[in-house]
Protein backbone atom coordinates (compact mmCIF):
# COMPACT_ATOMS: atom_id res chain seq x y z
CA UNK A 1 0.00 0.00 0.00
CA UNK A 2 2.71 2.50 1.00
CA UNK A 3 4.85 1.70 -2.03
CA UNK A 4 1.80 2.12 -4.29
CA UNK A 5 1.37 5.54 -2.72
CA UNK A 6 4.95 6.46 -3.55
CA UNK A 7 5.19 5.03 -7.05
CA UNK A 8 1.75 6.07 -8.26
CA UNK A 9 1.67 9.44 -6.54
CA UNK A 10 0.51 11.22 -9.70
CA UNK A 11 -2.81 9.33 -9.55
CA UNK A 12 -3.24 10.26 -5.88
CA UNK A 13 -2.53 13.94 -6.51
CA UNK A 14 -4.97 13.94 -9.41
CA UNK A 15 -7.70 12.29 -7.32
CA UNK A 16 -7.23 14.68 -4.39
CA UNK A 17 -7.33 17.78 -6.61
CA UNK A 18 -10.36 16.47 -8.51
CA UNK A 19 -12.29 15.93 -5.30
CA UNK A 20 -11.31 19.33 -3.90
CA UNK A 21 -12.62 20.94 -7.07
CA UNK A 22 -15.81 18.89 -7.04
CA UNK A 23 -16.45 19.64 -3.35
CA UNK A 24 -15.96 23.32 -3.96
CA UNK A 25 -18.39 23.32 -6.87
CA UNK A 26 -21.05 21.51 -4.90
CA UNK A 27 -20.83 22.76 -1.35
CA UNK A 28 -19.74 26.36 -1.48
CA UNK A 29 -22.31 29.12 -1.50
CA UNK A 30 -20.34 31.88 -3.16
CA UNK A 31 -20.43 31.72 -6.96
CA UNK A 32 -16.80 32.84 -7.22
CA UNK A 33 -15.70 29.88 -5.09
CA UNK A 34 -17.67 27.58 -7.37
CA UNK A 35 -15.82 29.03 -10.31
CA UNK A 36 -12.46 28.50 -8.66
CA UNK A 37 -13.51 24.93 -7.86
CA UNK A 38 -14.34 24.38 -11.52
CA UNK A 39 -10.90 25.70 -12.43
CA UNK A 40 -9.20 23.32 -9.97
CA UNK A 41 -11.29 20.45 -11.43
CA UNK A 42 -10.15 21.19 -14.97
CA UNK A 43 -6.50 21.70 -14.04
CA UNK A 44 -6.45 18.41 -12.13
CA UNK A 45 -7.47 16.62 -15.31
CA UNK A 46 -4.80 18.47 -17.32
CA UNK A 47 -2.17 17.52 -14.74
CA UNK A 48 -3.28 13.89 -14.92
CA UNK A 49 -3.00 13.66 -18.68
CA UNK A 50 0.46 15.19 -18.72
CA UNK A 51 1.67 12.93 -15.95
CA UNK A 52 0.69 9.80 -17.86
CA UNK A 53 2.94 10.80 -20.75
CA UNK A 54 6.11 10.87 -18.68
CA UNK A 55 8.69 8.10 -18.74
CA UNK A 56 11.59 7.42 -16.40
CA UNK A 57 14.94 8.57 -17.81
CA UNK A 58 13.51 9.81 -21.11
CA UNK A 59 14.30 12.93 -23.07
CA UNK A 60 12.00 15.76 -24.11
CA UNK A 61 10.46 15.00 -27.52
CA UNK A 62 12.54 17.42 -29.59
CA UNK A 63 14.93 15.94 -32.12
CA UNK A 64 17.98 18.21 -32.09
CA UNK A 65 19.73 19.04 -35.34
CA UNK A 66 17.34 17.13 -37.57
CA UNK A 67 16.38 19.97 -39.87
CA UNK A 68 16.48 18.80 -43.48
CA UNK A 69 17.57 15.22 -42.82
CA UNK A 70 14.09 13.84 -43.29
CA UNK A 71 13.91 10.14 -44.03
CA UNK A 72 17.49 9.30 -43.09
CA UNK A 73 16.92 9.88 -39.41
CA UNK A 74 16.14 6.90 -37.19
CA UNK A 75 14.23 7.77 -34.05
CA UNK A 76 13.83 5.39 -31.14
CA UNK A 77 10.47 6.39 -29.78
CA UNK A 78 11.08 4.76 -26.41
CA UNK A 79 13.72 7.35 -25.55
CA UNK A 80 11.34 10.30 -25.72
CA UNK A 81 8.39 11.12 -23.54
CA UNK A 82 5.00 10.89 -25.17
CA UNK A 83 4.15 14.25 -26.75
CA UNK A 84 0.53 13.46 -27.62
CA UNK A 85 -0.97 14.14 -24.16
CA UNK A 86 0.80 17.51 -24.13
CA UNK A 87 -0.80 18.44 -27.43
CA UNK A 88 -4.25 17.32 -26.27
CA UNK A 89 -3.87 19.29 -23.09
CA UNK A 90 -3.02 22.46 -24.98
CA UNK A 91 -6.52 22.26 -26.37
CA UNK A 92 -7.92 21.50 -22.93
CA UNK A 93 -6.13 24.54 -21.47
CA UNK A 94 -7.70 26.74 -24.14
CA UNK A 95 -11.10 25.25 -23.29
CA UNK A 96 -10.46 25.98 -19.62
CA UNK A 97 -9.54 29.58 -20.35
CA UNK A 98 -12.67 30.06 -22.43
CA UNK A 99 -14.85 28.53 -19.69
CA UNK A 100 -13.30 30.84 -17.10
CA UNK A 101 -13.88 33.82 -19.38
CA UNK A 102 -17.55 32.98 -19.89
CA UNK A 103 -18.11 32.34 -16.18
CA UNK A 104 -16.47 35.61 -15.15
CA UNK A 105 -18.60 37.54 -17.63
CA UNK A 106 -21.72 35.82 -16.28
CA UNK A 107 -20.63 36.61 -12.70
CA UNK A 108 -20.28 40.28 -13.49
CA UNK A 109 -23.72 40.33 -15.12
CA UNK A 110 -25.21 38.55 -12.09
CA UNK A 111 -23.52 40.98 -9.70
CA UNK A 112 -24.80 43.97 -11.62
CA UNK A 113 -28.35 42.67 -11.47
CA UNK A 114 -28.68 41.20 -7.98
CA UNK A 115 -25.89 43.05 -6.17
CA UNK A 116 -24.67 39.84 -4.56
CA UNK A 117 -22.89 36.67 -5.58
CA UNK A 118 -24.10 34.42 -2.79
CA UNK A 119 -26.19 31.67 -4.26
CA UNK A 120 -28.91 31.49 -1.58
CA UNK A 121 -29.50 35.24 -1.69
CA UNK A 122 -29.87 35.12 -5.48
CA UNK A 123 -32.39 32.29 -5.27
CA UNK A 124 -34.35 34.28 -2.69
CA UNK A 125 -34.29 37.36 -4.90
CA UNK A 126 -35.51 35.30 -7.86
CA UNK A 127 -38.42 33.85 -5.91
CA UNK A 128 -39.94 37.29 -5.27
Amino acid at each position, binding site marked *: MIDTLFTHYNYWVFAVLLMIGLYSMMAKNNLMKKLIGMNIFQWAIILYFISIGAKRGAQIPIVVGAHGQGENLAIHAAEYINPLPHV*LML*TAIVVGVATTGISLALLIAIYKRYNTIEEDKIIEALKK
Partner: protein
Amino acid sequence: MIEQFPVLIVVTPLILSFVVNVAGLWNRRLCFYIVVVALASCVVFSLGILKTVLTQGEPIRYSLGNWQPPWGIEYVIDHLNALILVSVAVVALLVAVYAKRSLEQEIHESKIPQVYTLFLLQVTGLLGITATGDLFNLYVLLEIASFSAYAVIAMGERGADFAAFRYVIFGTIGACAYLLGTGYLYILTGSLNMIDVAHLLPQSFYSKALLVGLAFFMVGVGIKMGIFPLHVWLPDAYTLAPSAVSALLAPLFTKVGAYVIIRIMFTVFDPAFSIDLYPVTDIVGWLAAIGILFACIMALAQSDLKRMLCYLIVAEMGYILIGLASANRLGLTGAILHIVNDMFMMACLFTVAGAIFYQTGTRDIYQFRYLHRTMPITLAVFVVGALSVIGVPPLCGFFSKWYLLLGAIEAKQWALVVVLLISSLIYAVLFFRVIERAYLEPREDHSHASQKGHPAPTLDKVPLSMLAPMVFIAAGIILLGIFSGKIIAHIIEFAIPAAL
Protein backbone atom coordinates in the same frame (compact mmCIF):
# COMPACT_ATOMS: atom_id res chain seq x y z
CA MET B 1 -16.77 17.77 -54.80
CA ILE B 2 -19.11 15.39 -53.11
CA GLU B 3 -16.24 13.67 -51.27
CA GLN B 4 -15.55 16.94 -49.49
CA PHE B 5 -19.08 17.21 -48.11
CA PRO B 6 -18.28 15.66 -44.71
CA VAL B 7 -15.87 18.45 -43.89
CA LEU B 8 -17.79 21.20 -45.68
CA ILE B 9 -20.86 20.57 -43.56
CA VAL B 10 -18.85 21.47 -40.45
CA VAL B 11 -16.62 24.20 -41.86
CA THR B 12 -19.30 26.21 -43.68
CA PRO B 13 -21.27 27.30 -40.60
CA LEU B 14 -17.96 27.90 -38.78
CA ILE B 15 -16.64 30.36 -41.34
CA LEU B 16 -20.03 31.95 -41.98
CA SER B 17 -20.55 32.55 -38.26
CA PHE B 18 -17.52 34.82 -38.25
CA VAL B 19 -18.68 36.40 -41.51
CA VAL B 20 -21.94 37.19 -39.67
CA ASN B 21 -19.92 38.71 -36.84
CA VAL B 22 -18.02 41.00 -39.21
CA ALA B 23 -21.05 41.81 -41.36
CA GLY B 24 -22.91 42.84 -38.23
CA LEU B 25 -20.51 45.73 -37.83
CA TRP B 26 -21.81 47.30 -41.03
CA ASN B 27 -25.33 46.14 -41.73
CA ARG B 28 -27.39 44.28 -39.12
CA ARG B 29 -30.05 43.16 -41.54
CA LEU B 30 -27.56 41.11 -43.53
CA CYS B 31 -26.88 38.69 -40.68
CA PHE B 32 -30.13 36.78 -40.97
CA TYR B 33 -29.68 36.09 -44.67
CA ILE B 34 -26.15 34.80 -44.17
CA VAL B 35 -27.46 32.43 -41.47
CA VAL B 36 -30.16 31.11 -43.80
CA VAL B 37 -27.63 30.62 -46.62
CA ALA B 38 -25.28 28.73 -44.28
CA LEU B 39 -27.97 26.39 -42.97
CA ALA B 40 -29.49 25.82 -46.40
CA SER B 41 -26.09 24.74 -47.71
CA CYS B 42 -25.76 22.44 -44.68
CA VAL B 43 -29.06 20.81 -45.65
CA VAL B 44 -27.80 20.30 -49.20
CA PHE B 45 -24.51 18.83 -47.94
CA SER B 46 -26.26 16.48 -45.53
CA LEU B 47 -28.60 15.20 -48.24
CA GLY B 48 -25.60 14.61 -50.50
CA ILE B 49 -23.86 12.69 -47.71
CA LEU B 50 -26.98 10.58 -47.11
CA LYS B 51 -27.24 9.75 -50.79
CA THR B 52 -23.57 8.76 -50.93
CA VAL B 53 -23.86 6.51 -47.87
CA LEU B 54 -27.00 4.85 -49.23
CA THR B 55 -25.50 4.12 -52.65
CA GLN B 56 -22.09 3.12 -51.29
CA GLY B 57 -23.46 0.86 -48.58
CA GLU B 58 -20.47 1.33 -46.31
CA PRO B 59 -19.36 4.27 -44.21
CA ILE B 60 -17.63 7.31 -45.68
CA ARG B 61 -14.19 7.75 -44.11
CA TYR B 62 -12.71 11.18 -44.65
CA SER B 63 -9.25 11.95 -43.27
CA LEU B 64 -8.48 15.57 -42.41
CA GLY B 65 -5.18 16.73 -43.82
CA ASN B 66 -4.76 13.42 -45.62
CA TRP B 67 -3.13 11.93 -42.51
CA GLN B 68 -4.18 8.30 -42.35
CA PRO B 69 -5.99 7.09 -39.24
CA PRO B 70 -5.10 6.28 -36.46
CA TRP B 71 -2.51 9.07 -36.59
CA GLY B 72 -4.86 11.61 -38.13
CA ILE B 73 -8.34 12.81 -37.35
CA GLU B 74 -11.00 11.29 -39.54
CA TYR B 75 -14.69 11.84 -40.06
CA VAL B 76 -16.63 8.58 -40.25
CA ILE B 77 -20.18 8.82 -41.55
CA ASP B 78 -22.31 5.70 -41.67
CA HIS B 79 -26.08 5.28 -41.87
CA LEU B 80 -26.75 6.41 -38.30
CA ASN B 81 -24.67 9.56 -38.68
CA ALA B 82 -26.13 10.48 -42.04
CA LEU B 83 -29.72 10.24 -40.81
CA ILE B 84 -29.01 12.41 -37.78
CA LEU B 85 -27.04 14.93 -39.87
CA VAL B 86 -30.04 15.41 -42.16
CA SER B 87 -32.46 15.87 -39.26
CA VAL B 88 -30.19 18.32 -37.42
CA ALA B 89 -29.63 20.39 -40.55
CA VAL B 90 -33.33 20.51 -41.50
CA VAL B 91 -34.51 21.40 -37.98
CA ALA B 92 -31.79 24.03 -37.62
CA LEU B 93 -32.76 25.66 -40.91
CA LEU B 94 -36.46 25.78 -39.98
CA VAL B 95 -35.74 27.18 -36.52
CA ALA B 96 -33.39 29.79 -38.02
CA VAL B 97 -36.12 31.07 -40.34
CA TYR B 98 -38.49 31.10 -37.35
CA ALA B 99 -35.95 32.89 -35.17
CA LYS B 100 -35.83 36.18 -37.02
CA ARG B 101 -38.93 37.94 -35.68
CA SER B 102 -38.81 36.13 -32.35
CA LEU B 103 -35.26 37.28 -31.60
CA GLU B 104 -36.00 40.82 -32.75
CA GLN B 105 -38.72 41.04 -30.16
CA GLU B 106 -36.82 39.56 -27.25
CA ILE B 107 -33.22 40.68 -27.62
CA HIS B 108 -31.85 44.20 -27.83
CA GLU B 109 -31.07 45.10 -31.42
CA SER B 110 -27.37 45.78 -30.87
CA LYS B 111 -26.83 42.16 -29.84
CA ILE B 112 -28.49 40.57 -32.86
CA PRO B 113 -25.26 39.86 -34.84
CA GLN B 114 -23.75 38.18 -31.76
CA VAL B 115 -26.81 35.97 -31.31
CA TYR B 116 -26.64 34.84 -34.91
CA THR B 117 -22.90 34.15 -34.57
CA LEU B 118 -23.57 31.96 -31.54
CA PHE B 119 -26.48 30.31 -33.38
CA LEU B 120 -24.20 29.24 -36.23
CA LEU B 121 -21.41 28.17 -33.86
CA GLN B 122 -23.92 26.02 -32.01
CA VAL B 123 -24.99 24.33 -35.24
CA THR B 124 -21.31 23.86 -36.18
CA GLY B 125 -20.70 22.08 -32.90
CA LEU B 126 -23.75 19.84 -33.27
CA LEU B 127 -23.00 18.87 -36.86
CA GLY B 128 -19.38 18.25 -35.96
CA ILE B 129 -20.25 16.01 -33.02
CA THR B 130 -22.41 13.94 -35.35
CA ALA B 131 -19.88 13.71 -38.16
CA THR B 132 -16.61 13.02 -36.37
CA GLY B 133 -14.95 9.69 -35.79
CA ASP B 134 -12.29 10.78 -33.33
CA LEU B 135 -12.85 10.84 -29.59
CA PHE B 136 -10.88 13.98 -28.78
CA ASN B 137 -12.31 15.87 -31.75
CA LEU B 138 -15.73 15.06 -30.33
CA TYR B 139 -14.68 16.67 -27.02
CA VAL B 140 -13.58 19.87 -28.77
CA LEU B 141 -16.79 20.11 -30.81
CA LEU B 142 -18.88 19.29 -27.72
CA GLU B 143 -17.26 22.21 -25.95
CA ILE B 144 -17.87 24.52 -28.93
CA ALA B 145 -21.56 23.63 -28.88
CA SER B 146 -21.72 23.97 -25.09
CA PHE B 147 -20.06 27.40 -24.97
CA SER B 148 -22.43 28.79 -27.55
CA ALA B 149 -25.31 27.38 -25.52
CA TYR B 150 -24.05 28.93 -22.25
CA ALA B 151 -23.61 32.33 -23.81
CA VAL B 152 -26.85 32.46 -25.74
CA ILE B 153 -29.00 31.18 -22.85
CA ALA B 154 -27.77 34.04 -20.67
CA MET B 155 -29.47 36.54 -22.96
CA GLY B 156 -32.92 35.51 -21.84
CA GLU B 157 -35.37 36.72 -19.24
CA ARG B 158 -34.98 37.51 -15.58
CA GLY B 159 -32.95 34.77 -13.93
CA ALA B 160 -31.42 33.55 -17.17
CA ASP B 161 -27.86 34.57 -16.27
CA PHE B 162 -28.02 32.60 -13.02
CA ALA B 163 -29.48 29.61 -14.86
CA ALA B 164 -26.68 29.92 -17.43
CA PHE B 165 -24.07 30.00 -14.65
CA ARG B 166 -25.45 26.82 -13.14
CA TYR B 167 -25.45 25.29 -16.60
CA VAL B 168 -21.78 26.28 -16.99
CA ILE B 169 -20.83 24.50 -13.77
CA PHE B 170 -22.81 21.36 -14.63
CA GLY B 171 -21.79 21.30 -18.26
CA THR B 172 -18.11 21.65 -17.42
CA ILE B 173 -18.30 18.69 -15.06
CA GLY B 174 -19.91 16.74 -17.88
CA ALA B 175 -17.37 17.68 -20.53
CA CYS B 176 -14.45 17.04 -18.17
CA ALA B 177 -15.88 13.64 -17.31
CA TYR B 178 -16.03 12.88 -21.04
CA LEU B 179 -12.39 14.01 -21.34
CA LEU B 180 -11.43 11.70 -18.49
CA GLY B 181 -13.17 8.82 -20.23
CA THR B 182 -11.20 9.55 -23.39
CA GLY B 183 -8.04 9.67 -21.28
CA TYR B 184 -8.68 6.25 -19.76
CA LEU B 185 -9.32 4.77 -23.20
CA TYR B 186 -6.11 6.40 -24.47
CA ILE B 187 -4.09 4.95 -21.58
CA LEU B 188 -5.44 1.46 -22.27
CA THR B 189 -5.24 1.42 -26.06
CA GLY B 190 -2.92 4.22 -27.14
CA SER B 191 -5.29 5.51 -29.78
CA LEU B 192 -8.01 8.13 -30.04
CA ASN B 193 -9.77 6.98 -33.22
CA MET B 194 -13.11 5.34 -32.50
CA ILE B 195 -12.74 2.43 -34.91
CA ASP B 196 -9.14 1.78 -33.86
CA VAL B 197 -10.09 1.81 -30.17
CA ALA B 198 -12.88 -0.66 -30.91
CA HIS B 199 -10.29 -3.02 -32.42
CA LEU B 200 -7.83 -2.68 -29.56
CA LEU B 201 -10.28 -2.69 -26.68
CA PRO B 202 -11.20 -6.38 -26.35
CA GLN B 203 -7.73 -7.13 -24.98
CA SER B 204 -8.50 -5.10 -21.87
CA PHE B 205 -12.13 -6.05 -21.34
CA TYR B 206 -11.52 -7.37 -17.84
CA SER B 207 -9.57 -4.44 -16.46
CA LYS B 208 -11.08 -2.11 -13.90
CA ALA B 209 -9.69 0.95 -15.66
CA LEU B 210 -11.97 0.27 -18.61
CA LEU B 211 -14.98 0.12 -16.35
CA VAL B 212 -14.05 3.48 -14.81
CA GLY B 213 -13.60 4.89 -18.31
CA LEU B 214 -17.05 3.72 -19.34
CA ALA B 215 -18.53 5.17 -16.15
CA PHE B 216 -16.92 8.55 -16.82
CA PHE B 217 -18.24 8.49 -20.40
CA MET B 218 -21.77 7.72 -19.28
CA VAL B 219 -21.79 10.40 -16.59
CA GLY B 220 -20.26 12.98 -18.89
CA VAL B 221 -22.60 12.44 -21.80
CA GLY B 222 -25.49 11.90 -19.39
CA ILE B 223 -25.10 15.42 -18.05
CA LYS B 224 -25.21 16.81 -21.56
CA MET B 225 -28.15 14.61 -22.50
CA GLY B 226 -30.27 15.28 -19.48
CA ILE B 227 -30.66 11.75 -18.09
CA PHE B 228 -32.65 11.53 -14.88
CA PRO B 229 -30.41 12.34 -11.92
CA LEU B 230 -28.19 14.64 -14.02
CA HIS B 231 -30.92 16.73 -15.64
CA VAL B 232 -31.11 19.42 -12.95
CA TRP B 233 -29.76 22.20 -15.15
CA LEU B 234 -32.27 21.56 -17.92
CA PRO B 235 -35.59 23.11 -16.78
CA ASP B 236 -34.18 26.45 -15.69
CA ALA B 237 -31.79 26.89 -18.59
CA TYR B 238 -34.22 26.05 -21.40
CA THR B 239 -37.19 27.84 -19.88
CA LEU B 240 -35.50 31.17 -19.29
CA ALA B 241 -33.64 31.29 -22.59
CA PRO B 242 -35.02 33.34 -25.48
CA SER B 243 -37.78 31.45 -27.34
CA ALA B 244 -35.93 30.90 -30.58
CA VAL B 245 -32.86 29.72 -28.69
CA SER B 246 -34.86 27.15 -26.72
CA ALA B 247 -36.41 26.04 -30.00
CA LEU B 248 -32.89 25.42 -31.31
CA LEU B 249 -31.30 23.88 -28.23
CA ALA B 250 -34.09 21.74 -26.85
CA PRO B 251 -34.68 19.48 -29.87
CA LEU B 252 -31.09 19.21 -31.00
CA PHE B 253 -28.57 19.31 -28.19
CA THR B 254 -29.94 16.50 -26.04
CA LYS B 255 -30.62 14.22 -29.00
CA VAL B 256 -27.09 14.60 -30.32
CA GLY B 257 -26.00 13.55 -26.82
CA ALA B 258 -28.16 10.44 -27.22
CA TYR B 259 -26.37 9.73 -30.51
CA VAL B 260 -23.01 10.00 -28.70
CA ILE B 261 -24.15 7.43 -26.12
CA ILE B 262 -25.20 5.02 -28.85
CA ARG B 263 -21.80 5.49 -30.51
CA ILE B 264 -19.91 4.88 -27.28
CA MET B 265 -21.94 1.91 -26.10
CA PHE B 266 -22.17 0.08 -29.40
CA THR B 267 -19.30 1.19 -31.65
CA VAL B 268 -16.41 2.02 -29.34
CA PHE B 269 -17.29 -0.49 -26.65
CA ASP B 270 -18.31 -3.68 -28.39
CA PRO B 271 -21.94 -4.75 -27.80
CA ALA B 272 -20.58 -7.81 -26.05
CA PHE B 273 -19.10 -5.55 -23.38
CA SER B 274 -22.06 -3.27 -22.92
CA ILE B 275 -24.65 -6.03 -22.79
CA ASP B 276 -23.18 -9.35 -21.75
CA LEU B 277 -20.12 -8.64 -19.66
CA TYR B 278 -21.34 -5.90 -17.38
CA PRO B 279 -24.95 -4.98 -16.53
CA VAL B 280 -24.68 -1.57 -18.17
CA THR B 281 -27.99 -1.92 -19.97
CA ASP B 282 -29.77 -2.95 -16.77
CA ILE B 283 -28.61 0.16 -14.94
CA VAL B 284 -29.53 2.32 -17.91
CA GLY B 285 -32.96 0.72 -18.01
CA TRP B 286 -33.69 1.39 -14.35
CA LEU B 287 -32.49 4.98 -14.61
CA ALA B 288 -34.67 5.44 -17.66
CA ALA B 289 -37.78 4.07 -15.96
CA ILE B 290 -37.40 6.15 -12.80
CA GLY B 291 -36.53 9.18 -14.89
CA ILE B 292 -39.63 8.91 -17.05
CA LEU B 293 -41.94 8.62 -14.07
CA PHE B 294 -40.23 11.49 -12.25
CA ALA B 295 -40.33 13.75 -15.29
CA CYS B 296 -43.98 12.99 -16.01
CA ILE B 297 -44.96 13.80 -12.44
CA MET B 298 -42.97 17.02 -12.45
CA ALA B 299 -44.46 18.00 -15.80
CA LEU B 300 -47.97 17.58 -14.40
CA ALA B 301 -47.16 20.14 -11.72
CA GLN B 302 -46.09 22.94 -14.03
CA SER B 303 -48.20 25.85 -15.14
CA ASP B 304 -45.60 27.33 -17.46
CA LEU B 305 -45.91 25.70 -20.88
CA LYS B 306 -42.19 25.81 -21.67
CA ARG B 307 -41.22 24.33 -18.30
CA MET B 308 -43.64 21.49 -18.86
CA LEU B 309 -42.02 20.86 -22.25
CA CYS B 310 -38.55 20.85 -20.62
CA TYR B 311 -39.60 18.03 -18.31
CA LEU B 312 -40.99 16.33 -21.37
CA ILE B 313 -37.48 16.38 -22.87
CA VAL B 314 -36.18 14.49 -19.83
CA ALA B 315 -38.93 11.92 -20.27
CA GLU B 316 -38.18 11.52 -23.99
CA MET B 317 -34.53 10.92 -23.12
CA GLY B 318 -35.77 8.15 -20.88
CA TYR B 319 -37.58 6.62 -23.86
CA ILE B 320 -34.38 6.50 -25.88
CA LEU B 321 -32.61 4.87 -22.95
CA ILE B 322 -35.37 2.26 -22.74
CA GLY B 323 -34.56 1.42 -26.34
CA LEU B 324 -30.90 1.03 -25.43
CA ALA B 325 -31.70 -1.02 -22.35
CA SER B 326 -33.69 -3.55 -24.37
CA ALA B 327 -30.44 -4.33 -26.21
CA ASN B 328 -32.03 -6.01 -29.22
CA ARG B 329 -32.64 -4.91 -32.79
CA LEU B 330 -36.21 -3.80 -32.20
CA GLY B 331 -35.35 -1.69 -29.19
CA LEU B 332 -32.41 -0.02 -30.88
CA THR B 333 -34.54 0.62 -33.99
CA GLY B 334 -37.07 2.34 -31.78
CA ALA B 335 -34.34 4.37 -30.05
CA ILE B 336 -32.78 5.63 -33.29
CA LEU B 337 -36.16 6.37 -34.85
CA HIS B 338 -37.13 8.17 -31.67
CA ILE B 339 -34.05 10.39 -31.86
CA VAL B 340 -35.11 11.63 -35.29
CA ASN B 341 -38.79 11.87 -34.41
CA ASP B 342 -38.17 13.67 -31.17
CA MET B 343 -36.10 16.35 -32.87
CA PHE B 344 -39.12 17.25 -34.98
CA MET B 345 -41.66 16.86 -32.18
CA MET B 346 -39.77 19.03 -29.72
CA ALA B 347 -39.04 21.62 -32.41
CA CYS B 348 -42.77 21.75 -33.13
CA LEU B 349 -43.76 22.18 -29.48
CA PHE B 350 -41.08 24.70 -28.58
CA THR B 351 -41.76 26.87 -31.62
CA VAL B 352 -45.45 26.89 -30.69
CA ALA B 353 -44.58 28.00 -27.16
CA GLY B 354 -42.44 30.78 -28.62
CA ALA B 355 -45.20 31.87 -30.98
CA ILE B 356 -47.74 32.01 -28.16
CA PHE B 357 -45.28 34.09 -26.15
CA TYR B 358 -44.76 36.39 -29.16
CA GLN B 359 -48.44 37.12 -29.56
CA THR B 360 -49.85 37.04 -26.04
CA GLY B 361 -46.79 37.72 -23.90
CA THR B 362 -47.49 34.86 -21.52
CA ARG B 363 -46.73 31.18 -21.26
CA ASP B 364 -49.06 30.41 -18.38
CA ILE B 365 -51.42 27.56 -19.30
CA TYR B 366 -54.21 28.98 -17.18
CA GLN B 367 -54.40 32.04 -19.40
CA PHE B 368 -54.87 30.17 -22.64
CA ARG B 369 -58.63 30.60 -22.72
CA TYR B 370 -60.06 31.62 -26.10
CA LEU B 371 -56.71 31.05 -27.72
CA HIS B 372 -58.32 29.06 -30.53
CA ARG B 373 -60.06 32.19 -31.71
CA THR B 374 -56.91 34.25 -32.02
CA MET B 375 -54.27 31.65 -32.91
CA PRO B 376 -55.94 28.80 -34.84
CA ILE B 377 -52.98 27.76 -37.00
CA THR B 378 -50.54 27.74 -34.10
CA LEU B 379 -52.86 25.59 -32.04
CA ALA B 380 -53.36 23.20 -34.96
CA VAL B 381 -49.59 22.73 -35.12
CA PHE B 382 -49.58 22.19 -31.36
CA VAL B 383 -52.25 19.51 -31.67
CA VAL B 384 -50.21 17.69 -34.32
CA GLY B 385 -47.15 17.79 -32.05
CA ALA B 386 -49.12 16.73 -28.99
CA LEU B 387 -50.77 13.79 -30.74
CA SER B 388 -47.38 12.69 -32.01
CA VAL B 389 -45.84 12.78 -28.52
CA ILE B 390 -48.80 10.85 -27.09
CA GLY B 391 -48.39 8.28 -29.84
CA VAL B 392 -51.34 8.42 -32.20
CA PRO B 393 -50.93 6.83 -35.64
CA PRO B 394 -50.11 7.79 -38.41
CA LEU B 395 -47.92 10.45 -36.80
CA CYS B 396 -44.29 9.59 -36.25
CA GLY B 397 -44.38 9.26 -32.48
CA PHE B 398 -46.55 6.18 -32.71
CA PHE B 399 -44.04 4.19 -34.74
CA SER B 400 -41.07 4.84 -32.49
CA LYS B 401 -43.11 3.99 -29.40
CA TRP B 402 -44.34 0.83 -31.10
CA TYR B 403 -40.80 -0.38 -31.76
CA LEU B 404 -39.71 0.54 -28.24
CA LEU B 405 -42.61 -1.47 -26.81
CA LEU B 406 -41.85 -4.44 -29.04
CA GLY B 407 -38.20 -4.31 -28.05
CA ALA B 408 -38.99 -4.16 -24.34
CA ILE B 409 -41.47 -7.04 -24.63
CA GLU B 410 -38.96 -9.17 -26.52
CA ALA B 411 -36.30 -8.50 -23.88
CA LYS B 412 -38.83 -9.43 -21.18
CA GLN B 413 -38.33 -6.15 -19.33
CA TRP B 414 -41.85 -5.86 -18.04
CA ALA B 415 -41.10 -2.87 -15.83
CA LEU B 416 -40.09 -0.86 -18.89
CA VAL B 417 -43.27 -1.88 -20.74
CA VAL B 418 -45.41 -0.74 -17.84
CA VAL B 419 -43.52 2.55 -17.60
CA LEU B 420 -43.96 3.17 -21.33
CA LEU B 421 -47.71 2.64 -21.14
CA ILE B 422 -48.21 4.69 -17.97
CA SER B 423 -46.20 7.57 -19.38
CA SER B 424 -48.30 7.60 -22.55
CA LEU B 425 -51.38 8.00 -20.38
CA ILE B 426 -49.77 10.82 -18.43
CA TYR B 427 -48.79 12.53 -21.69
CA ALA B 428 -52.41 12.38 -22.77
CA VAL B 429 -53.43 14.11 -19.52
CA LEU B 430 -50.68 16.71 -19.91
CA PHE B 431 -51.57 17.72 -23.41
CA PHE B 432 -55.30 17.53 -23.12
CA ARG B 433 -55.02 19.90 -20.18
CA VAL B 434 -53.62 22.52 -22.55
CA ILE B 435 -55.82 21.63 -25.51
CA GLU B 436 -58.99 21.69 -23.47
CA ARG B 437 -58.19 25.04 -21.96
CA ALA B 438 -57.35 26.50 -25.36
CA TYR B 439 -60.16 25.04 -27.43
CA LEU B 440 -63.18 24.55 -25.24
CA GLU B 441 -65.14 27.33 -23.60
CA PRO B 442 -67.31 27.16 -20.48
CA ARG B 443 -71.02 26.74 -21.20
CA GLU B 444 -72.16 29.98 -19.60
CA ASP B 445 -70.10 32.14 -21.93
CA HIS B 446 -71.68 30.82 -25.12
CA SER B 447 -74.83 32.89 -25.01
CA HIS B 448 -73.12 36.07 -23.94
CA ALA B 449 -70.14 35.66 -26.27
CA SER B 450 -70.76 38.65 -28.50
CA GLN B 451 -71.88 40.95 -25.70
CA LYS B 452 -69.02 40.32 -23.30
CA GLY B 453 -66.40 41.35 -25.82
CA HIS B 454 -64.57 38.06 -26.14
CA PRO B 455 -62.18 38.08 -29.06
CA ALA B 456 -63.73 37.47 -32.42
CA PRO B 457 -62.18 34.68 -34.50
CA THR B 458 -59.18 36.00 -36.41
CA LEU B 459 -56.09 34.56 -37.98
CA ASP B 460 -52.83 34.54 -36.03
CA LYS B 461 -51.06 37.84 -35.58
CA VAL B 462 -47.84 35.85 -35.64
CA PRO B 463 -45.82 36.84 -38.74
CA LEU B 464 -45.51 34.49 -41.68
CA SER B 465 -41.78 33.94 -41.16
CA MET B 466 -42.69 32.31 -37.85
CA LEU B 467 -45.82 30.47 -39.02
CA ALA B 468 -44.34 28.86 -42.12
CA PRO B 469 -41.53 26.94 -40.35
CA MET B 470 -44.01 25.70 -37.73
CA VAL B 471 -46.32 24.37 -40.43
CA PHE B 472 -43.35 22.77 -42.20
CA ILE B 473 -42.25 21.05 -38.99
CA ALA B 474 -45.78 19.74 -38.47
CA ALA B 475 -45.83 18.51 -42.07
CA GLY B 476 -42.46 16.88 -41.37
CA ILE B 477 -43.94 15.02 -38.41
CA ILE B 478 -46.75 13.67 -40.59
CA LEU B 479 -44.36 12.74 -43.41
CA LEU B 480 -41.95 11.02 -41.01
CA GLY B 481 -44.84 8.97 -39.74
CA ILE B 482 -45.99 7.92 -43.18
CA PHE B 483 -42.50 7.04 -44.38
CA SER B 484 -41.32 5.37 -41.15
CA GLY B 485 -41.27 1.97 -42.77
CA LYS B 486 -39.01 3.12 -45.57
CA ILE B 487 -36.64 4.89 -43.18
CA ILE B 488 -36.35 1.80 -41.02
CA ALA B 489 -35.87 -0.59 -43.91
CA HIS B 490 -33.31 1.43 -45.81
CA ILE B 491 -31.35 3.32 -43.19
CA ILE B 492 -31.83 2.15 -39.63
CA GLU B 493 -31.49 -1.56 -40.46
CA PHE B 494 -27.89 -0.90 -41.46
CA ALA B 495 -27.18 1.50 -38.64
CA ILE B 496 -27.52 -1.09 -35.91
CA PRO B 497 -24.34 -3.13 -35.31
CA ALA B 498 -24.58 -6.60 -36.74
CA ALA B 499 -23.76 -8.32 -33.47
CA LEU B 500 -27.22 -7.63 -32.05
